[in-house]
Every structure is written in C-alpha cells, then in structure tokens.
C-alpha cells in the first residue's frame, strides 16, 4: 500500500536523477526547433489560411460570372454580392488571421490561457460557419446557372431561358434550400473539427473556476 505522504519521496527518488541525466545536445534542440508546430493555434492559422484561399477562389469565380453570362440581372446580383459580401468578408478574414498571428497564450497562466483559447476557437468557428453559409448559396447558384447554360449549348433544356425571372427565382430558391439543408451538416462538421475540443477546454476551465 502506497501512502500519500511518500509520493514526493517516490517521485524524487525515481524522477529527479533521470532529469539530471537528460541533457539535450544543441544539435538535438536545433532539430526540434526546425519541426512543424502542431499547436492548436498553428492549426487554427493553417485552417484560416485555407479558408482565405478558398474564399479568394470563390471571389474570383463570382467576379468572372458577369463576363461569362452577359446578363444584366446576374451582373447586378454578383457585383452586389462582391461589393457587399465577398470583399468585406475577405478583409475580415485577413484581419482575423493577422490577429491570430500576433496572438500568444502560452506564457500566461493556465486559466488565462484557457479563457483566451476558448474565445479564439469560438470566434474562429463563428467566422468559419458564417463564411461557409455565405459561400453555399453562391456556389449552388453559379453551378446551377452554369449547368443550365452549358446544357442549352449542348441542345438540351431549350425551353428554359436561364436569364428569365422565373428561372432565376427557381435557381435562387434551390440555392436557398441547399443552404438551409447544409446548416445542420455544417454544424456537425464544425463540432467534429473543434467543437469537442472546445468542450474539453471548457471542462478544464470549469474545473479551475469551480471554487473561485
């Protein structure tokens, strides 16, 4: 039976001598420092950078649509989307990325670090969630319109005028329905991505705060 009072003695007796022996060579430290960071902040930064890249691609596609279709209502819709949604959101993404770049938590005490990390993760999930929700209807709308356009070029669905108001309304409705359907999938995906980790971090924080 091990008595608690002996814990420190057991620790000192077995661990302390091994710590003294663990001198790391300079070359080993250099090798370790060259490695890729796996910290959660680095993962967040990489994810956000990927999001920015995807957003830029979508932005370019949206900007190209008016040239491709040559239709006034579509041009107005996409220019409005570019000016009021895509460009501001891209700037917002870049701003958040820069903030995250300057953000450092590891030198703080554990409680403060946990609070800051949870805040950053929740912010990121919100940005990711709304960013994806914005992209969903536009992706569907562009794809549906392009499909219809190409099918007509191939001699199918000739009775459809892709730029008529009813057709645009159907495509728009389809895009909105798709967005609504993607809502729970997106929620599930984000929970899978970081949601469970946030819950774990919150549990730790609660543990530190429960008596204070």
């Amino acid at each position, binding site marked *: 039976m091990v008595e*608690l009072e002996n814990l420190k003695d057991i620790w000192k007796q077995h661990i302390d001598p091994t710590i003294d022996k663990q001198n790391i060579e300079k070359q080993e430290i250099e090798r370790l420092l060259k490695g890729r*960071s796996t910290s959660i902040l680095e993962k967040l930064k990489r994810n956000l950078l990927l999001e920015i890249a995807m957003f830029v691609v979508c932005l370019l596609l949206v900007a190209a649509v008016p040239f491709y279709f040559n239709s006034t209502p579509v041009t107005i819709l996409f220019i409005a989307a570019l000016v009021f949604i895509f460009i501001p959101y891209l700037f917002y993404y870049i701003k958040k990325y820069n903030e995250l770049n300057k953000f450092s938590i590891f030198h703080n005490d554990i409680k403060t670090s946990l609070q800051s990390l949870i805040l950053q993760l929740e912010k990121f999930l919100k940005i990711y969630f709304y960013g994806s929700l914005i992209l969903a209807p536009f992706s569907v709308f562009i794809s549906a319109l392009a499909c219809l356009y190409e099918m007509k070029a191939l001699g199918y669905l000739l009775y459809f005028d892709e730029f008529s108001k009813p057709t645009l309304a159907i495509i728009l409705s389809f895009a909105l329905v798709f967005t609504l359907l993607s809502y729970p999938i997106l929620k599930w995906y984000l929970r899978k991505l970081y949601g469970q980790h946030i819950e774990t971090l919150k549990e730790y924080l609660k543990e530190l705060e429960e008596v204070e």
Partner: protein
Amino acid sequence: MYTSNQDDHNDLFQEMILQLWKAFPSFRNEAKITTFMYRIALNTAISGIRKKKIKTTELESISFQIKETIEENFSDELKLLHASIEQLSDVEKSIVLLFLEDKPYDEIAEITGISANYVAVKMNRIKEKLRKLLNVK
C-alpha cells in the same frame, strides 16, 4: 502523462521546446524562469488536441487497471503512481505534477492562475482521489 505512446510523447516534447523558444522573448523577469517554463509546458500539454484514448470514469475499471499494474510489478511504486496520475484530469495532472516537483502552493497558483487557497483545496481532493486509487488491493 499527457500522452499515451512514445510518438505522441516525442511530438509533445518537440512542441514544448518550440513554444518555449517562441515565448522566450516575452519573458520579462516578472516571474521566476521556472514558473515561466512550467506555464508554457503545461499550457502546451493541456491545450493540444490529442488522439482519442479510451476514457473510463468508473472507479471499478480504474481499479482494475491499477490492479493489473500492481500484479505486474508490485514493488514498482513509481509505476503505480504513474498509473494513478494517468486517471486524473489534465488540470489535476498539472497540479499534482507541480506538487510532486515540490513547488509551493504560491508558485502552483501563479502557474495555474487560481488562488493559493484553491490550490490547497484542489490538492486535498486530488490526494483523496489518489488515495482511493493507490490503495486498491
């Protein structure tokens, strides 16, 4: 104690070195260098996403695991101590490790961000948990 295999252990060690290296310019002598280093090491360990491991909360299953350890090598007290600490939460592990490293409650408070009084309360609870785990026959 924060990892379940050698690869994860190596990764965590590397991450700690990286974070120490990055954080060192922000060291302002407001705290002891060891306090600063413990903060970084434990923050790195706690905040990281680790691969899922089987988590059992039932005391019976925990006792069973420890019993196995005892049977394997009854005289190896350190192994038993390790096995018991493994069952604690990551926050509890941090506190108990600092305790075993002979850190005073004030310094543990500085590293964890909770008051010294609460460290004492928390330590009593951890001791109680460990007592149950260690005294399983």
